């Protein structure tokens, strides 16, 4: 018996130890993902994990260049004919990865499918103003809107503009987007294998339409590594070459490694504290201003946020969204009201309100350590003006539910006094944060206006700027809205977050701009000699 056990042990040890390390002859670019992708489908490509994969397989009608400016990609040109009509001239020299030529029908199909209610596309919200999408010539697509919308032009640079083969997508039916199905796009890489929950392998597209493309890697492997420490270890030990979703507190480990370069990219977003303006006493401006003054945000920035974000003012966006007339923003930023840490001023403000001696409130956060620490600091600071702040810590998905109005009481009111949340613009447009956060129409169930702020004057100015195309004219209208917002502070902007992107020193870096969720492509990635 004993001998038999010994023999089994030895056999196991032999098998385990004698498996040779895989001989590496192929050049593999390994990307560490923080989780499984949602689906291999443009309709569900709207996050920093899924898009890293679909961006390599699909190309869009338009895209964003290294300065985040809109440029044509699968279109050769486009123009806005009038307030509501956009005409795109489609390239006639593009073919799909299966060798079939891309036609205008494929382009119309790819954009129009996001409007199908049965699909439930994540991008459908971006296309809400669309009235019709039609082929108006052999190589021409025309999109008509129901109402003017200045930011519509950006939409086809997102996954809503990704072109996929109509024939393949229809033939796949329910399998499309799943590991059992296939996706046919026009991009430089094609799907080779997808082991659900483990890894996704792409190989160069042999039928790529741009003949000048010479792939420097034989395969791109997306490895799903949910555990932060393992993902970071994979990078420092050279087993992974790129990772994007990185916890702030572990980034110093990466910066210390000689194998890894860490770059910070503006996220075009904000980390905010929203007041529930529909709930007393947060409907009083004095209460909101008092809380703003009672919290030491400079200290929070210095000790908690550190490298993860830039100090913020009342402006809903960082420089990344200043747009074509950026100098006007720089000048305006000098004039905005400030709410520096000042307990006396906070007390005076609160004394003018209906709750001069303070009150009790809830502050909702998710499990993110930075956000939670910010909440703890706020809780401490608010004690000084008699406000008893209860922190409600919930899971990320529950938090999403709170933030977008999924959790309401019996009367339909949102169940939080304040909420700490994040918002990231989809593109580098001047109103890309203003409209979602402050427009009254977004203060609904599923809406992005977590402060439930609804000021008619602001709403009118937001609508007015959306209909204007001249940059200075738009800025003037936006600044008028910001004058009111700066006074009423429905949100406190905590910081303008920046995202770390870690890349291996043994490969050249892919283009990384604030728009990288849409434009990070690995075409040019090559081993460093």
């Amino acid at each position, binding site marked *: *018996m*004993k001998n038999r*056990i010994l023999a*089994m*042990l030895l056999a*196991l040890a032999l*098998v*385990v*130890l004698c*498996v040779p*390390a895989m001989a590496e002859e192929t050049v593999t670019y390994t990307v560490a993902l923080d*989780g*499984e992708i*949602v*689906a291999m*489908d443009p309709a*569900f490509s*709207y*996050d920093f994990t899924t898009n890293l994969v679909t961006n390599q397989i699909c190309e869009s009608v338009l895209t964003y260049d290294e300065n985040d400016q809109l440029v044509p990609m699968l279109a050769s040109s486009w123009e806005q004919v009038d307030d509501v009509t956009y005409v795109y001239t489609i390239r006639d020299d593009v073919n799909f990865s299966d060798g079939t030529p891309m036609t205008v029908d494929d382009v119309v199909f790819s954009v129009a499918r996001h409007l199908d*209610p*049965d699909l*439930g596309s*994540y991008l*459908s*919200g971006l296309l*809400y103003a669309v009235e019709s999408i039609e082929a108006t010539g052999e190589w021409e697509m025309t999109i008509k809107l129901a109402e003017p919308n200045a930011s519509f032009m950006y939409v086809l640079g997102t996954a809503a503009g990704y072109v996929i083969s109509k024939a393949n997508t229809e033939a796949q039916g329910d399998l499309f*987007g*799943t*590991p*059992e199905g296939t996706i046919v796009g026009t991009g430089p890489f094609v799907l080779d294998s997808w*082991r*659900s*929950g*483990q890894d996704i392998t792409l190989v160069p597209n042999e039928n790529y339409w741009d003949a000048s493309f010479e792939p420097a890697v034989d395969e791109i492997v997306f*490895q*799903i*590594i*949910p*555990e932060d*420490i*393992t993902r970071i*270890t*994979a990078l420092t*030990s050279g*087993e992974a070459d790129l990772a994007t979703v990185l916890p702030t507190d572990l980034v110093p480990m990466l910066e210390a490694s000689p194998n890894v370069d860490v770059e910070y990219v503006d996220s075009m977003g904000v980390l905010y504290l929203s007041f529930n303006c529909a709930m007393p006493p947060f409907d009083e401006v004095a209460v909101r201003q008092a809380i703003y003054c009672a919290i030491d945000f400079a200290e929070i920035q210095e000790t908690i946020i550190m490298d993860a974000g830039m100090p913020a003012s009342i402006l809903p966006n960082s420089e990344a969204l200043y747009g074509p007339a950026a100098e006007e923003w720089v000048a305006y930023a000098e004039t905005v009201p400030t709410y520096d840490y000042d307990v006396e001023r906070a007390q005076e403000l609160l004394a003018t309100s209906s709750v001069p001696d303070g009150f009790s409130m809830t502050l909702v956060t998710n499990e993110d350590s930075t956000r939670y620490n910010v909440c703890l600091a706020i809780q401490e600071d608010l004690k000084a003006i008699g406000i008893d702040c209860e922190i409600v810590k919930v*899971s*990320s*998905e*529950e938090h*999403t*539910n709170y*933030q*977008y*109005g*999924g*959790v309401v009481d019996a009367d339909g009111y949102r169940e939080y006094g304040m909420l700490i949340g994040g918002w990231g613009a989809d593109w580098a447009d001047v109103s890309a944060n203003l409209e979602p956060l402050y427009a009254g129409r977004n203060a609904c*169930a*599923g*809406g*992005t206006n977590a402060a439930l702020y609804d000021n008619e004057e602001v709403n009118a100015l937001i609508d007015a700027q959306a209909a204007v195309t001249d940059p200075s004219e738009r800025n003037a209208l936006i600044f008028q809205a910001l004058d009111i917002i700066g006074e009423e502070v429905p949100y406190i902007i905590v910081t303008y977050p920046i995202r770390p992107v870690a890349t291996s020193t043994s490969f050249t870096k892919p283009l990384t701009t604030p728009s990288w969720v849409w434009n990070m492509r690995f075409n040019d990635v090559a081993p460093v000699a």
Partner: protein
Amino acid sequence: MSKYIFKRILSLIPIVIIVSVLIFAMVRITPSDPVAVMMKGKKITPETRASIEAQFDLDKSYPEQYICWIRNIFKGDFGTSFHYKQPVLSLVSSRLPNTLQLVMMASLLALLIALPLGIVCAVNMNRMADRVLSLLTLIFVSAPTFLVGILLMLGFAVKLGWFPVYGAGHNFVENLHALFLPAVALALNMVALIARITRSNMIEQLNAPYAQTAIAKGVPLRKVVMGHCFKNALIPVITVTSIQFGGMIVGAVLVENVFALGGVGALLIDAIKQADYPVTQSITLMMVVVFLTINLIVDVLYAAIDPRIRLDA
């Protein structure tokens, strides 16, 4: 015998029904709007909302949803994941082989380590060797699996480079190699329990009259221990190991996450976090059925060995 098995299977039916109702209710107990979670808070039209609700039966009442769920299971359809937009069955079937292999390797390793430990402790009861080994198993059981996993990875995969840092490999042999460290991390907790049970049962057997007689007659201790007592002490050990096996399928999640193995446990935890009802309720129900089946097999084996059990029933 077949009558006994039939009766046992019949008695499982009400259990499965009650458990399925409980699972269904518990999944829905937290306040949550599945459509908002599914759309990640993105703006959607009322038509899209209505269409999604219809696709996932969310427009129906809870009792109707429950009946749909059960009816579809009998058709082999466990529903479609809210988050991944693909059938639960294909999500699970692509992850189950890794989890099963991991759990089997861990169980095997645990037995290989725990049985000799337990026997040595029993033979040397209350002597130095027993005390030291008992302390060691105590350390094993109290070491957090997550931490052990990371330490093993840093030591054997990063420093020594003997094993891959992450991933499960592409074929059976590669899997054996890649899953070795995770299996060790997972096995350590089990080692303690199995070793304790082996020890106490071995002590009981060694003190039994038949063993004492054999020793008194001059049969070598090794023969008494391995030839007679070990076989008798093995039965409860097998029971505990097989029941642990079921629990480990979910318990493996920590190890699966550390080593990026992409198993069923990790899928379940993600699904719970994402309020992905179909995945959560289906995997939980599958686990319950696995537990019950293992229990049933163990009971039947007992009955086969010991006729008194089936007569009592």
